[in-house]
């Protein structure tokens, strides 16, 4: 059976530009998802995480390409199923479909010390070593003249007659920066700076983006990140939109795991009194709920729901059932 592979690169130390605070944590979180059986399901041996050192000696292109070379070697005569590539660090937009993923030794002088997203994607597609290639890039795409990022140094002798298909999602549109923000988690003791894109992407990959049948497809993932990232960025006082390109069909599954189709949901009522109506996306009544009981618990299918007072037309509260949150408070 074909296996999945994954490479994760998190660069927060840079010789020639300001350091970042989030990439190592983001890379670790992505690896957790990648290796989880309900996530990328990538065996430990097929997974490599590169993080930067403060002497800027790692990860450099030859170290990264060596990993690809080894994988090519292992996959001689056979094909890998999925390849997940994740990058978190500084980036520069070269053109609308090419971003320079900056390596630690990058500086305005060493402005080619970067991986070309396009050249790597094109190579991986053309070599046909993997059926599906995923590139997730949490970095800026703003411009600097004269940067010509590096192409991969690994290659198969001939272009495959059976090339791979791909999905590439960039954290920001061309010529706009991606942002990092302070994460406000439940305990409030964690002030990790995190890439907004990675947070939304991981939520989606962990199941929030899955369709009503619990399957996570390329179309579902793109739609989720495209919708949620601007909203999340806005809460942080930022504007951020993704850019994506894909040859993979929207109904191709990003992972094998099937997420739950229904979830046990609890709604707490701070305001007791009115009878509420829970409606689906077609504004059709799913349930009528008596708030006098203080709470309601029950099973709901994946999807978006809205609560309104029985005698009012206006929806008051949106309930998103996607596995991220199972307790809601009304009022």
């Amino acid at each position, binding site marked *: 059976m074909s296996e999945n592979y994954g490479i994760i690169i998190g660069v927060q130390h840079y010789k020639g530009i300001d350091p970042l605070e989030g990439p190592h944590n983001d890379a670790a979180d992505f690896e957790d998802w990648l290796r989880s059986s309900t996530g990328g399901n990538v065996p430990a041996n097929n997974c490599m995480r590169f993080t930067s050192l403060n002497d800027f000696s790692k990860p450099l292109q030859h170290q990264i390409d060596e990993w690809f070379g080894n994988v090519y070697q292992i996959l001689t005569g056979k094909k890998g199923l999925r390849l997940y590539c994740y990058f978190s660090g500084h980036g520069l937009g070269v053109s*609308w479909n090419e971003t320079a993923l900056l390596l630690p030794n990058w500086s*305005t*002088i*060493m*402005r*080619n010390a970067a991986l070309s997203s396009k050249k790597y994607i094109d190579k991986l597609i053309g070599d046909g070593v993997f059926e599906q290639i995923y590139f997730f890039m949490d970095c800026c795409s*703003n*411009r*600097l*003249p*004269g940067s*010509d990022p590096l192409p991969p140094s690994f290659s198969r002798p001939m272009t495959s007659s059976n090339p791979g298909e791909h999905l590439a999602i960039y954290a920001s*549109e*061309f*010529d*706009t920066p991606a942002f990092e923000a302070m994460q406000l988690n439940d305990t409030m003791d964690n002030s990790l700076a995190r890439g907004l894109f990675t947070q939304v992407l991981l939520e989606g990959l962990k199941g929030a983006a899955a*369709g009503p049948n619990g399957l996570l497809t390329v179309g579902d993932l793109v*739609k*989720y990140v495209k*919708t949620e990232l*601007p*909203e999340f960025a*806005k809460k942080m006082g930022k*504007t951020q939109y993704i850019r994506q390109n894909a040859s993979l069909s929207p*109904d191709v599954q990003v992972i094998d795991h099937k997420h739950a189709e229904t979830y046990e949901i609890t709604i707490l009522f701070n305001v007791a009194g009115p009878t509420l109506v829970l*409606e*689906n*996306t*077609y*504004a*059709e009544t799913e349930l009528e709920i008596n708030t006098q009981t203080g709470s309601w618990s029950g099973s709901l299918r994946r*999807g*978006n729901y*809205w609560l*309104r007072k029985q005698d009012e*037309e*206006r*929806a008051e509260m*949106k309930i998103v059932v996607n596995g991220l949150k199972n307790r809601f408070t009304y009022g």
Partner: protein
Amino acid sequence: MVKRKRKSSEEYSFRFVIEDELAPIAFVQLFDGENDLVHSGYGSIENLRVPRGMYRLRVELNEFTEEREYRITSDITDKLTLVKISSAMPLLGRINTHEYFSIPTEKWSSEVTLKTSEQLPNSIFLFFRYAHPTVPLKSAGGDPMLHQNFMILDRDRQVLFILDKENTRWCKNENKVDNVLVEHFAWCAFHVSVPSGQYYLHYNGERKREIPLYVFPRWQTQLFLMFSSEPVFSTTRIFIGRNGFNRHDAEAAIIDALLQKMHNGIYQVPPSIKLQAADGKWENPMFGIVVCYIYLLSRENSDDGLIETMRKNLEHRILDAAISPDIVALRLLSAIHKKERLQKEENKKASAENRVAETIQFELPSVKFNEPCMVAAGMKAVLNYAQTIEKDVTGDLVDKIFTSQRPDTIFTSYVPPPLPADVKRSQSSRLSNLLSRIWSTNLEAKFEKDNGWVTAVLRELLAHDKEGKLDLNDLAKSLRLPPKKVAKYVRMLENEGSIYTTVKNFFSSKERGRVAIIKENLARFKK
């Protein structure tokens, strides 16, 4: 397998009206309850029929986004009355516009702050402003320092005016509401009449900058800039006015918002704006310049004829269009756009006829750029042109700034090369001393050295070109510089060649190999 969505059989009308002069460029999207896009377009939504259900509307205009949710179980009409965006131009309706900025802008754009011997119908107007909720602007002896380090240069980059507290008008104050401090503010205005032509706003502060300005006959070129502790060049707005600035100018508001879209890489001209442009219902040349740039930078071809008419109108309305770099850049972009369309058509035809597409032969206009354009996109067009044509099409200054352009504003802005006056002064005062003479000519060299990335990248490219395949044009494309400029850097490397020979014993064997390849390639270029 394509997913089929269930749909309610009940349908209702949805109407969303944007009551703001920026409505034509506000991007509106309507999503259904499953976040699938139902409608997208510019401006108000008129009578859209949608199935019963839950919907989410998103309005986007530059930094402004607003989302609204709807439960559509009957016909709905809703409206948005104000698009909250900010601008360095103190236009009515912008969230950072206050009377204490807009009134002096109107006043001092109509009256000169510096009287010259000849009063001309063309002028330069600068308006700088500062606002902060708690921190007052730094000042010296009570004078706000907004004018400090700014000067206006002429076409040859000789200093024409140095802004000071005598030739500017300024104010520094506090805005209090009910005795509560709202913000500290300050502004500085400079207005002088000048002959039409090319000028530069030069900033000689800690982070040096220069911005080209073009003054059209009988028009006023206006530049607006916001300050924090130093000038925030990303807020630069250049505008063209007839009788001074008018805070009610609806055309100015549209231009301002379109410029921001362009800065965000959104090259789309909303249909209603295109129609306005085609009907000639615009007065301001900046409107024509911006709409043409945006359209010609897009991959659109559907309105080529319409934009061409607009571009020609622009040339007719401006008396010296032939020498304004932006107008010339638009002529060039228009030709490139046409060439690309013809090639696209040929590709399509060839593909239908199952043959290899021919390369379209299309001669680009013969133009030369001695001065930079005001709009940065124009400079990009100039560079592409310089890389595709063998003739020398760029002047010395244009060549120099390609390596020092700053991408933070939609307008051309760069770390300036030393002023000609500084170079001369330095040479004459130290001419007797040989070492000093080297130092003085090095003012220019220092500027080039600050662009040391070019030689570093060039060295890398040559070191990797083991088969000697790269020519000057290939290098120019990689470096995004005109070939002429690359040739200059190749010569600089040739000079380094003698240094390599002298110190070669210090190199490791691997480095010696690299140096040998670089030298071989350099010798090839010399031939």
